[in-house]
């Protein structure tokens, strides 16, 4: 299941590249730094998982990439999609790009489908809006092909949304997104509202899709297991930043960042033998803590962590990680400059039991 189509030795081209991207919201309490200086890229046909606790900025990043931000929010940095600079693009060009080249899959499929329109009408409308001059037969062929890939039989082409189960509706939504063959899709918790078995089926389908469509995908989820099963790479987000990013297998097998490790440990799995959890809760992003923003909750926190933010570093396994403890453990050059004082454990105030998200 983890094999990637194509020749793995040949690195595929980068579809989307974010550099030092920021997405902030304006509120009465001042700016909320929901995404703060995030850099990453996604390659053709690759699924990048995005995980982290609630409120760490995952959805904001996903929407920010597509420019789907509420009024009052702002983004800067650099964002290149198929070589074009998205941030300086005119709004109407961005609009034309969404759907056609950039897609989005949401959590609740029913709210996105018009109950009065047949599935076929949804497809016709979508296809005609972006590709003028398609013949009726061509529309039908393309739609049925997309539905077939998602496991919806052709007999249901003219049915109404309410005639489908939740899982089938989500499949239809995905087919609707993919029928335009976008180069990049953001899927924000696409299976959270579904049953466990259906979730597993759809994750499987998403994973297999890459071969057919060569679509790059950012898969946002709470479920680390899903990332391990469906994604090639994973980015771990905390307090608006990507703290670790790398091959999914590598990150889960040998987490370098303390947050990644604690997150994995606190996940209840079939092999859980004792309950572990991270004390405290993610910070208020209008006033993130100084230094490493995880330091108030980090069991490995040192004096340096409270004052200086760790720098991003590429590990031997090719992951990128920002953590002082990882720097020391890996014997990174920056670690050599740290004094004994810097390395001494940080005495944090007792966190309250119920201080949780």
């Amino acid at each position, binding site marked *: 299941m983890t094999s990637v189509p194509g020749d793995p030795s040949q690195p595929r081209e980068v579809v989307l590249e974010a550099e030092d991207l920021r997405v902030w919201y304006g509120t009465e309490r001042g700016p909320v730094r929901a995404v703060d200086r995030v850099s990453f890229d996604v390659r053709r046909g690759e699924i990048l998982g995005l995980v982290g*606790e609630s409120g760490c900025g995952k959805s904001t990043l996903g929407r920010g990439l597509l420019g789907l931000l509420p009024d009052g929010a702002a983004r800067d940095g650099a964002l290149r999609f198929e070589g074009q600079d998205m941030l300086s693009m005119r709004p109407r060009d961005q609009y034309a790009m969404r759907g056609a080249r950039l897609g989005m899959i949401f959590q609740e499929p029913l709210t996105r489908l018009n109950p009065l329109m047949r599935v076929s009408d949804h497809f016709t409308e979508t296809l005609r809006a972006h590709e003028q001059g398609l013949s009726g037969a061509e529309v039908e062929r393309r739609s*049925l092909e997309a539905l077939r890939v998602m*496991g919806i*039989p*052709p007999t249901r082409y003219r049915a109404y949304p309410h005639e489908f189960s939740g899982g089938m509706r989500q499949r239809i939504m995905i087919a609707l997104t993919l029928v335009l063959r976008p180069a990049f899709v953001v899927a924000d918790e696409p299976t959270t509202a579904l049953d466990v078995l259906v979730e*597993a089926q759809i994750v499987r389908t998403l994973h297999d899709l890459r071969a057919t469509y060569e679509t790059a995908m950012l898969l946002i989820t709470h*479920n*680390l*297991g899903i990332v*391990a099963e469906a994604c090639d790479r994973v980015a771990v987000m905390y307090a608006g930043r990507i703290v670790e990013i790398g091959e999914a297998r590598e990150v889960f097998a040998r987490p370098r960042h303390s947050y990644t490790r604690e997150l994995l440990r606190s996940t209840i799995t079939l092999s859980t033998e004792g309950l572990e959890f991270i004390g405290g809760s993610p910070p208020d992003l209008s006033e993130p803590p100084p230094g490493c923003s995880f330091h108030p909750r980090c069991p490995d926190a040192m004096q340096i962590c409270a004052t200086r933010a760790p720098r991003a570093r590429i590990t031997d396994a090719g992951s990128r990680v920002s953590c002082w403890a990882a720097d020391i453990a890996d014997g990174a050059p920056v670690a050599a400059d740290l004094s004994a004082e810097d390395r001494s454990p940080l005495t944090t105030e007792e966190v309250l039991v119920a201080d949780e998200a």
Partner: protein
Amino acid sequence: MRPDQDPVIEVEDLAVHYRLQGGALARLLGLETRTVKALDGVSLQLGRGEVLGVVGESGSGKSTLGRAMLGLAPATAGSIRYRGHDDAEAQLVSAMSPRALRGLRTDVQMVFQDPGAALNPSMTIERAVGDPLVVHGLASGAELRRRVHEALERVGLSPVERFASKLPADLSGGQKQRAVIARAIIMGPQVLVADEPISMLDMSVRAKILQLMLDLKSDLGLTYLYITHDLASAKYFCDRIAIMYLGRVVEIGPTAEIFAAPRHPYTQALLAAVPDPDPTRMLPRDLPRGEVPDAAEPPSGCAFHPRCPAAFAPCGWEARDLRDQLERYWAGSGLADYESDARVVGDLGAVGTHRDGGLRISTRDPDAAAALLDRARAADVTDPFWRGVTGWRTESDGVRIDLAPGQEPRLRVAPGGEGRVEVACHLHDPSVSHADTPGP
């Protein structure tokens, strides 16, 4: 339940049927409305001090079972017997008066799935948690305050002053769930029905709430009915597990045995679907197809048969299975096939049940229909559906398809496992012939 435990609650053949509101016209004319069998003959016992997990997909009747234990869902048939304290007489929950039911609710309490919805949005935490005592007239004034503070502290909402005067909207999900638990334990209940208490919480909070529930169990000697769709937390938390599907228990037994050797194909499927973040344990898995069917029209025979990878002759095949089979065939074949076949079977409208058993495809071109069946079968001979088909023949105006007779599997003690596991599946019923029926 272990033999050394006496049951606190005994559920026997419990059924809860809901009458669905039909369309306006149907109601006006007094026509038959559809019913959903949310629970259909469930029997189980909840031993004192144990944690019984109830696991299943949505719509399997888990919440209905939990609500019925508190008398919140009306029993259509069967009984729930509650045996409060050791010396107390057993009482029939299903026959209690409204007043007696309210009394029962000092002993059996509930924790809800959505902590954001379970608290009155316009009541402070202090008032919400103390309300059970007020409602039952058990405490007031300083005594009420003391007990509320004690309960809040017990669930970790301390310093109490910081939380007591807050409204639910000011608390995080985990904190709200703690308040809901505080409200549930404040009257010193015997049994706590926890309906998916962690599934709507952030993953990093789940372990904390589960730990709290474990602590409360050992400190207060609680008995839990733990309802969940997540096998991983059930495995860690429960002593015994009941797997439910469409209103019935399909497998029940000690947790360790269920996980070591899941017998029911549905249990196996659920287990296979648990995603595991550990890359060393990731396996390619076989997942059942499809989704939970409409509970108002459950499949005949074994309700799981349309999705069961191991289904065979006696599992209850019917007309819609053939329709599904053809749809699957077309989803895999090219569009051209579908278009020519649709002319023969008219978008599946032609597939029906024969007057005297079996199925029929009504068409003016019986040979084409038979050929379609041949092709569909050849495309996937291993599909369980064909194990139920004993043969077909063309008639003047269609094709007749014979099916093996179906029967409903009953919950029975599974062979092996020291007789502690019960399962409802023909595969584990020695009286059912296991020879696959050969096709034509």
